Structure formats: C-alpha cells, structure tokens
C-alpha cells in the first residue's frame, strides 16, 4: 500500500515544475501547457484525499477542474491565435501593446 503523503509529494513535484515553467519560459504555448500541468497536480491531491476518506466529493471537484481546464485552453488558445495574427510572434515578452 502506498501511504497518502507519497501522492502529495508527487503532486508537489508536478506543481513546482509547472510553476517553474510558467515563470521562466518565454513561449506562450509552453506557459499555457504548464498551467495545465499545475491543474493536473491539484487533481492528484483531490483524488488521493477522496480515496483516503472513502468519499467521492473530491473526484467530483476534479471533474469540475478538468472542465475549467478545457474552457481555459479554448479561450487561451483563441487569444494566442488572435495575438499571433497581429504580431507574428509567440514570445510573452512581446505582449506589451497595453504598455506606454
């Protein structure tokens, strides 16, 4: 049997890697994919606790998080497409049109 804190450590490792990806990469698509990784790490926590308490509420919340991830990916990729059409680049540093 795997103790529950090993699931939490796996989730923590994935979360930290996702945060590093969001903070250090310049490519917008990689940043969006790192956000998906963070959401996935949270799901592991929810399912592990749901299993530990023998209650499915955590899994229902994980389903809502997956729904959120789908909505976020659709809108985010739409924004990336619109941005790419205007500026011909994918770098987050170049997204400074609102600065003066």
């Amino acid at each position, binding site marked *: *049997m*795997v*103790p*529950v*804190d*090993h*699931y*939490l*450590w*796996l989730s*923590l490792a*994935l979360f*930290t*890697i*996702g*945060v*590093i*990806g969001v*903070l250090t*990469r*310049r*490519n917008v*698509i*990689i940043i969006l*994919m*790192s956000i*998906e*990784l963070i959401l*996935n790490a949270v*799901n592991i926590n929810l*399912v*592990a606790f749901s*299993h*530990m308490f*023998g209650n499915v509420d955590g*899994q*229902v919340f*994980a*389903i*809502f998080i*997956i729904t*959120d*991830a*789908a*909505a*976020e*990916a*659709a*809108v985010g*990729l*739409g924004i990336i*497409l*619109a941005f*790419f*059409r205007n500026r011909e*680049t*994918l*770098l*987050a*540093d170049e997204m400074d049109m609102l600065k003066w």
Partner: protein
Amino acid sequence: MGLNSILFYFFAGLAVASAILMVTRRNIVHGAVYLITTLLATAGVFLLLQAEFLFVTQVILYVGGIMVLFVFVIMLVNLDVSLLQYQFNRQRFVAGVLALALGAQVFLALKTGQHSLFPQARIPEVLPKNTEAVADALFGRFMLPFEIASILLLVAMIGAVVMAKRRV
C-alpha cells in the same frame, strides 16, 4: 512491496520525468508530446486510486480533447524562427529559485506535519462502484455547480469563436 506500489512509483517517475522534459524542451511539439505522457501517467495514478471514471475522463477529455486542441494551434502558429530564439526570459534565475523555495516550503510543511495532518495515513483497500457514486454525487448534491459548469463551457465556446475569428 506489492504490485500497487511498484506501479505507483513507475507512474510517478514517468510523470515527473516527462514534466521536466516538457518545460525544458526547445521545440513546442516535443513539449506537447511530453505533456501527453505526463497526463497519461497521471491517469494511471487515478486508476491505482480506484477512480475509474476520472481515469476515463482524463484520457478522453485531457489527452483526446485538450491536447489535440493544443497540437492543432501549434500547427497553425508554428514558427521556425522561434526554434532559434532564446527560450528563457530575463528573470529566469530569480523565478527558478523562488519556485524551488515554494516547493521546498510545502515539502517541509508536509514532512513535519505528516502525523498530525493525516490521522489515518494509510489508504483503505476497496471503494465500491466508483462511477455510480460519482454520478449520484454529480447529479444529486452537485446539480447546481454542474449547471454552472455547462454555462461556463458555453461562454468559453462563444469566447473562443469570437477570439479566433478574423473580423468581429
């Protein structure tokens, strides 16, 4: 060490290794493939936790839906120029150190609070009839959040169409 533990450490190692590869690769198509590997390994962890419905949802929705969307957009915007550019931004060292500090903090908190946080730190053996229980919860107590999620999906769909259109 039972089969369960071996499978768990196998899936955990696979997930972490391909996540590291995902954030360090130069080519975004390779990054997307490594992210798919991570998501499939996570689906395996869900199966070990006896969340069968969530396992199927993860494979169909995440890997089959969201990642296809990502790969499609990568195909639309792929630039050969971006392979030659520098991939990390100016604040990378500070940001990396801060992120690792955050991880170390949570790790220490989990390590020291292990026995008081989880009174029964062992996972029970069997949970009966996962899909039925999820359906009961989703369409019973969580009916209102379920409807709100459907409205969220509708809004996201309209938003994505408006954003990706050439002229509004």
